[in-house]
């Protein structure tokens, strides 16, 4: 299919229907950021209602639930998953392993276009009659397809169809990424010389390949229930005085299938973030990563365990106590490799030559956000504590810090870090610092107080809280404060978008390796790398990715492809 031996020439094949992994990565990233912006605006709509109830008539209860659902779904699937695997994975895998491209460039291109279709179908649900579905991002039946839930006619159908299309796209991409890592590594690039970024993305992709089918199955079956009137999940139900034709199905069955996807999904997002942050820290602290092999095994262990833990979400649905105990234990066990990673990051930083660059700030922000949010998670992993706090704002705070904001911080850090390679220009440093501090402090201001609201018993997924005697006045003040912080954080993202657009054309020209990094993507002959990445000769790898500050060398790093006997400069 890919017959020509030259780089493509026309505008269309070069920038639009390109099979070059770097172009596809940019397409994925830009699309994901655009749809993520929609998710952000939706979260602000919710916050306006929660902080200042009754002041904004256009946010009625239905709009609230629609915003909630679409916000959750967009953030988790269409932004985080897509940008980490499709964006970062696409750009970095071939460059970091020393390949000229993905092994199936055509399939790679197809993956992006199918993803775009999924996004468009999702956005279309905002304009169909009844609007998008408002069933909560978990789309639990029966209510997700019953009248009374917003978007129960068209919205839910488009949502499900969009998810199915997304899964097809993710599978096309995923097969490509995994095969590329397995088969296209440069000479000398053994698995234990791979940068942790590649390890994280690799493992996350394997998880995605085998977890998304669960979402696919539950989605198709729910679609059957909705469109064909089957009763896979639907029990006998009287809706609005009318008995419906459903009978005998089990909503619990959906929950099992959904969380068989949902739990690994947490790590599909987390593992690439772990990998990227390891490389950012090591590079910007000029120190080798502490315990590289341990880090790799931790990534593998988390991947395996995360499949096992899926049913810990079933505590509340009342399961066999023996199982409950089993899952509680595995949840705690998964904390072990995760904690190892946090320690290793800290030990990497310890006595490092820390350069507080913008990428480094975001990486440090991630560690802080992740560690603190993770600690509160230990409360939730424990069966006995889980019951009173589940379904309160404690949970909302916990998962936002751990799997919402933390990965986002890594994504920002990654963009600031790799932008010079992608565009050949540096991003503006001052704007970057403002962006970091506003986002970081703002995110704490939003989510930290929510733990407290959770202890007060404030339930999640409520449109209005005015008439609950147990919620004190101070909680309403706190909610107003959180909303203001959320608006500030949202506005701060404009700095980032401006910085991206401005720096791409006007930014200071970057050298080939401005951070002094060791990994292969910084050693390309051209910046940005040309078609085929490496010019005439693909690199040969001689060492691991973390040769920083070696004794007796003039430079404080040795690239992975520098020949062993190279004269000391």
């Amino acid at each position: 299919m890919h017959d020509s031996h030259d780089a493509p020439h026309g505008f269309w094949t070069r920038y639009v229907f390109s099979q070059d992994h770097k172009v596809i990565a940019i397409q994925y990233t830009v699309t994901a950021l655009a749809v993520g912006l929609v998710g952000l605006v939706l979260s602000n709509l919710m916050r306006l209602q929660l902080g200042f109830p009754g002041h904004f008539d256009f946010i009625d209860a239905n709009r609230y639930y629609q915003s909630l659902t679409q916000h959750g779904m967009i953030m988790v699937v269409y932004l985080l998953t897509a940008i980490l695997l499709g964006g970062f994975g696409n750009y970095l895998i071939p460059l970091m392993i020393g390949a000229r491209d993905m092994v199936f460039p055509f399939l790679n291109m197809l993956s992006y276009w199918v993803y775009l279709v999924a996004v468009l179908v999702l956005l279309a649900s905002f304009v169909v009659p009844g609007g998008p579905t408002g069933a909560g991002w978990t789309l639990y039946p029966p209510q997700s397809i019953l009248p009374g839930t917003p978007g129960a006619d068209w919205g839910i159908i488009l949502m499900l169809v969009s998810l199915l299309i997304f899964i097809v796209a993710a599978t096309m991409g995923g097969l490509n990424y995994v095969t590329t890592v397995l088969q296209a590594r440069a000479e000398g690039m053994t698995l234990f010389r791979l940068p942790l970024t590649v390890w994280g993305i690799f493992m996350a992709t394997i998880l995605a390949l085998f977890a998304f089918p669960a979402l696919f199955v539950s989605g198709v079956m729910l679609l059957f229930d909705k469109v064909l009137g089957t009763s896979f999940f639907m029990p006998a139900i009287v809706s609005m005085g009318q008995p419906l034709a459903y009978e005998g199905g089990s909503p619990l069955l959906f929950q099992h299938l959904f969380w068989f996807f949902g739990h690994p999904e947490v790590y599909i997002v987390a593992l690439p973030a772990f990998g990227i942050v390891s490389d950012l820290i090591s590079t910007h602290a000029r120190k080798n990563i502490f315990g590289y092999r341990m880090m790799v095994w931790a990534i593998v262990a988390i991947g395996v365990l995360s499949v096992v833990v899926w049913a810990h979400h079933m505590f509340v649905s009342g399961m066999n106590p023996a199982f409950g105990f089993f899952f509680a234990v595995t949840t705690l066990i998964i904390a072990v490799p995760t904690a190892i990673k946090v320690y290793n990051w800290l030990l990497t930083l310890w006595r490092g030559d820390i350069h507080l660059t913008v990428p480094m700030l975001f990486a440090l922000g991630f560690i802080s956000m992740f560690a603190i949010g993770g600690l509160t998670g230990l409360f939730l992993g424990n069966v006995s504590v889980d019951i009173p706090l589940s379904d309160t704002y404690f949970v909302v705070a916990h998962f936002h810090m751990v799997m919402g904001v933390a990965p986002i911080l890594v994504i920002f850090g990654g963009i600031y870090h790799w932008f010079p390679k992608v565009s050949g220009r540096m991003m503006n440093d001052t704007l970057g610092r403002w962006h970091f501090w506003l986002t970081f402090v703002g995110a704490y201001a939003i989510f930290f107080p929510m733990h407290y609201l959770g202890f007060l018993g404030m339930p999640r997924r409520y449109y209005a809280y005015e008439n609950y005697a147990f919620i004190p006045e101070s909680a309403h003040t706190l909610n107003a404060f959180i909303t203001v912080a959320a608006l500030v954080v949202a506005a701060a993202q404009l700095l980032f978008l401006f910085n991206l657009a401005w720096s791409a054309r006007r930014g200071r020209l970057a050298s080939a390796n401005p951070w002094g990094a060791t990994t292969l993507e910084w050693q390309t002959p051209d910046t940005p790398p040309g078609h085929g990445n490496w010019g005439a000769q693909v690199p040969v790898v001689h060492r691991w990715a973390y040769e920083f500050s070696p004794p007796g060398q003039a430079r404080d790093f040795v690239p992975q492809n520098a020949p062993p006997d190279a004269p000391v400069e």
Partner: protein
Amino acid sequence: MEASIDLARPARPATARVAVWLLLGVVFVLFVLCLLAYAMRMRLGDWRALPLPWQLNVSTAMLILSSASLQWASVAARRGGRCARGALFAAFVFAAAFLAAQAWAWQALVAQGRLASANPSNGFFFLLTGLHALHVLGGIVALLLAGRRGERLGLCALYWHGLLAVWLLLYATMAWLTPAIVDFICGVA
């Protein structure tokens, strides 16, 4: 720089083989999850076993023949034999016949008024056969694109055998799995 050299080289056969195995793994997980849902749903009170349409025997035979022809075609093509074309053609015909037989089975059920909504067992029948047929259809498209190169035909044959295995699993489950067996497996007997 005229140096794109090995860039445009199509993926090595070994590479493509890894990808096909991976794909089969994903497909397998997809269908096993369906069957897991099938088994869980079957234990609920309203389940009535679906008498499977006899056309499934025809379709099973067609899929086996298609798989065998494709295997033959790939071996013959690798040896440079002349019968590769005929075998490839046969693989197409049998695959199409498989899909036709599945459609026939659907039509028979619909004619009896056993629509997807009649009982969850009917729903699963349409779901499982439908998803599987889509995978076969995708395989046919891939086969059309593959041309007559031996190693590519070998990959298609591998995929075909995988889909055959999945189909046999689906058929066996629909034919023989009963709520009593599920209870037994779950230890609730």
